[in-house]
């Protein structure tokens, strides 16, 4: 097991910057999710760490050993990095045991030890007795577990997951999420988990690296990302936060400041040292919006979706540009076209409003 250090890594394909100046410091045994929309560079990052691509600038260090820099690239076969591929990449012409034991055979581990370690690995993923099967005869979840066992058996220093749940149906996803979490707990392996699904990342990771257009936007714990998004992109990407323009009326005191939002004053959370500005952006969650009497912000309901036990209301503010959404508990109801009043109780002043 080992930590991973990515320093100022840049990767270009032709004149396209897939990654620009990305730095990540991952501690030994940490579970890191790399999260971002498609095309954000997360897969490129994984391929750089695995050694399939070479960096243009910067260095990648695993366990204190430099693996990549612009002049040198340790080939993937010598990195001791495990990968769980999106499509599992199980070799169809080999049995489950042969798949799992491949890396041991390559390393010329003798037969008795090999068999023992294959058995252990299969036990770890709860696939005892499946050794003689062919991948084609396994279910999606079982294939995923074989892929896990295959990557475990060689005790890699680092395990990379490339969107491993993207090909599974919803029910299986939840149970595989549990499986990954307990796998991490049992093995203590450093894990880099690539995904575009923020719920998955929030559920699994110790820390999440949010990427956008080749840049690392924010690297923080799931709670921090949710409560204190650094940019509008993170705010809207994580749990569908609403990003609205606002004026910061007072400077930060004890992590709070007074803002003017949609003509109403409110106390918002903010970063230390937040200054007064007329050009701020704030992040609001639907839980921050409550129905108000006539003195609140007037909004017109655009759509009401029944969600069981309550409705999700999509509304637009009086200026017809700012869209909001919030939950309305039963028995209250709002119909489309109706106007109502709301109050915004809390929110977060986004520090880097203009990124």
């Amino acid at each position: 097991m080992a930590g991973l250090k990515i320093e100022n890594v840049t990767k270009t394909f032709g004149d396209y910057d897939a990654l620009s100046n990305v730095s990540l410091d991952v501690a030994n045994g940490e579970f890191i999710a790399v999260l971002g929309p498609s095309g954000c560079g997360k897969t490129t990052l994984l391929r750089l760490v695995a050694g399939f691509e070479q960096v243009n600038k910067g260095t990648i260090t695993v366990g204190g050993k430099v693996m990549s820099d612009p002049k040198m690239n340790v080939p993937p076969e010598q990195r001791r990095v495990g990968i769980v591929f999106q499509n599992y990449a199980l070799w169809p012409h080999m049995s489950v045991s042969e798949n799992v034991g491949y890396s041991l055979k390559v390393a010329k581990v003798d037969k008795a030890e090999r068999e023992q370690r294959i058995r252990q690995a299969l036990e770890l993923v709860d696939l005892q007795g499946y050794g003689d099967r062919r991948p084609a005869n396994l279910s999606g979840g079982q294939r995923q577990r074989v892929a896990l066992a295959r990557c475990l058996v060689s005790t890699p220093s680092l395990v990379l997951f490339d969107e491993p749940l993207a090909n599974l149906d919803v029910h299986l996803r939840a149970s595989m999420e549990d499986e990954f979490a307990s796998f991490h707990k049992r093995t203590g392996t450093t894990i880099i988990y690539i995904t575009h699904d923020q719920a998955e990342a929030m559920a699994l990771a110790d820390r999440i690296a949010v990427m956008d257009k080749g840049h690392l936007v924010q690297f923080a714990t799931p709670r921090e990302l949710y409560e204190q998004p650094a940019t509008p992109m993170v705010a809207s990407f994580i749990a569908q936060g609403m990003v609205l323009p606002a004026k910061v009326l007072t400077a930060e005191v004890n992590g709070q400041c007074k803002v003017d939002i949609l003509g109403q004053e409110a106390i918002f959370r903010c970063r230390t040292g937040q200054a007064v500005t007329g050009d701020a952006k704030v992040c609001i969650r639907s839980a921050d919006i409550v129905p108000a009497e006539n003195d609140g912000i007037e909004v017109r309901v655009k759509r009401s979706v029944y969600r069981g036990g309550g409705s999700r209301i999509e509304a637009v503010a009086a200026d017809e540009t700012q869209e909001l959404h919030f939950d309305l508990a039963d028995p209250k109801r709002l119909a489309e076209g109706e106007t109502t009043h709301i109050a915004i109780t809390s929110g977060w002043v986004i520090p880097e409003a203009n990124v």
Partner: protein
Amino acid sequence: MTIYGEKRQGADTVLIAGVAIIVAMLSIVPMLRLAFEIIMPQGNLSAAPLRTALSGSATWTATLHSLQVGIGGTLLAVILGTAVALLVSLTNVRGRSTFVLLYVVPLLIAPQVTALAWLQLFGPASPFLKLIGMAPALGSKNPLYSTTGIITLLGVQYGPLVFLMVRAGLRKLPRELVEAALSSGASRLTVLRTIILPLMTPSIIGATALAFVSCVGNFGIPAFLGIPAGYLVLPTLIYQRLAGGGPAVLSEVAVLSMLIGLIAMAGILAQDYTSRRRDYRIASTSLPASPFELGRWRPLAEVAMWLLIIIVLVLPIVGLFLTSLVAAYGVPLSMKTVTLANYAFVLFDHAAAKRAFFNSFGLSIAAAAFAVFVAVPLGYLITWRKRWWTRFLNLSAELPYALPGVVLAIASLLLFLKPLPIIGLQIYNTIWIILYAYLARFLVLALRPTISGLQQIDRSLEEAAQVAGAGLIRRMRTIIFPLVAPATLAGGVLIFMTAFSELTVSALLWASGSETIGVVIFSFEQGGDSNYAAAISTLTIVVIFALMLLTNLFARSLPNGVLPWRD
């Protein structure tokens, strides 16, 4: 419990260099040698051979003839092949897979065998026509000894080639496109005209170019049908010059082969242009469109289909077979005259024929095995290790097959006329020069299915082995080869079939002792021994058909489209 990956840093370099050298030796070197001969004939800067070759009226007559039969044969092949592909792919005719199996057979039968079969069917000595009492008077001219005859047979021979390419295109047509048009209210004919055919243009243009190259480069058909009528095309002109003048006229025929190469190159460039605009990867997992119901027209379409098989396959083979059973030219076939003596003669008595079976078998096996082992690393470099030069590698491997066989044969002659430098080995006039030409010519037949196989395999399978610590050589052996082997081996079978009765190359390279089956058939026919030629030809057809059926048994483990005759 530490695991180290295999440290074979050099393996990449060795593999790349090895494969590149092999391709260069088989493609670049002979072509450069040919070009050198045209610029500097016999080592001296001189334009004399160029002038001689280009000023002779025979050259231009043959060029004109080549274009004539090339364009005519291509047109016929495209019309036939496209029509059959549309019928088989888009409608609900029955018996499709058997039909495809049979329709593709003419492509796998050597052209000279096709020519011989048709000649035997229509000639005044035709046992078949005699049987049904329709034989023309002995001594009358066989109608196939004509331009029309050559064009007809080229169309029959290469119609299946067009069929295969258009059918492959139609298979990739996502059904949503057809269904969307139908639900917009278009009739089936409108859909065919406005959706399907426009989408098939790349396939049809590519197929047209390929058919043109094949028709122009064909030797067997114009040799059997044209030479007796005094109608020469460039390949047969080259053959006659060389047969008459020997190595002395090599410089001159090099110019002629360049001429045929240039004509073919126009076709190759057109094909390359269209294939570059096409992605061979399976883009959508959509099912093919549901077939159009023909309704009451279906029996009619089916009758037409099977009539085509009878005309292009059954009748010629029957004609050939009947000829192989009669004792001598012109003898009518009856229970009294039927004999297996021709078979006994070619298999046991005739020394050259016996040798030819042995030679052709060995050459085909060697060419197939070589191609299989080179195609996997070569295909791997081309598909999974794309660099700017891998495309060049692919084109180089295509070149000896894409250019007419005559061109490669002349280049091989020039290359090996003198003993090999340093080791002083003389392979001119031996079987080894034929082997060299076969290796060069047929490599691509195993390379193409390998590439299409690799394109259908997810590369992460290799990457998974890489992160497991496996070096390149091991990955090649344990992952890549097993995964792509079925496709590559099917290519090997294709090579065996093509090489087994090959004539174009060996007609120019053979010597006494290194006869091939194709050469022996040709010699028998030229010597008037059609019965012996027919007997050997029948045997080759049996071998090829048996191989087709045998490989069909393993077809389940093959990627789609690797076995041309399998639907």
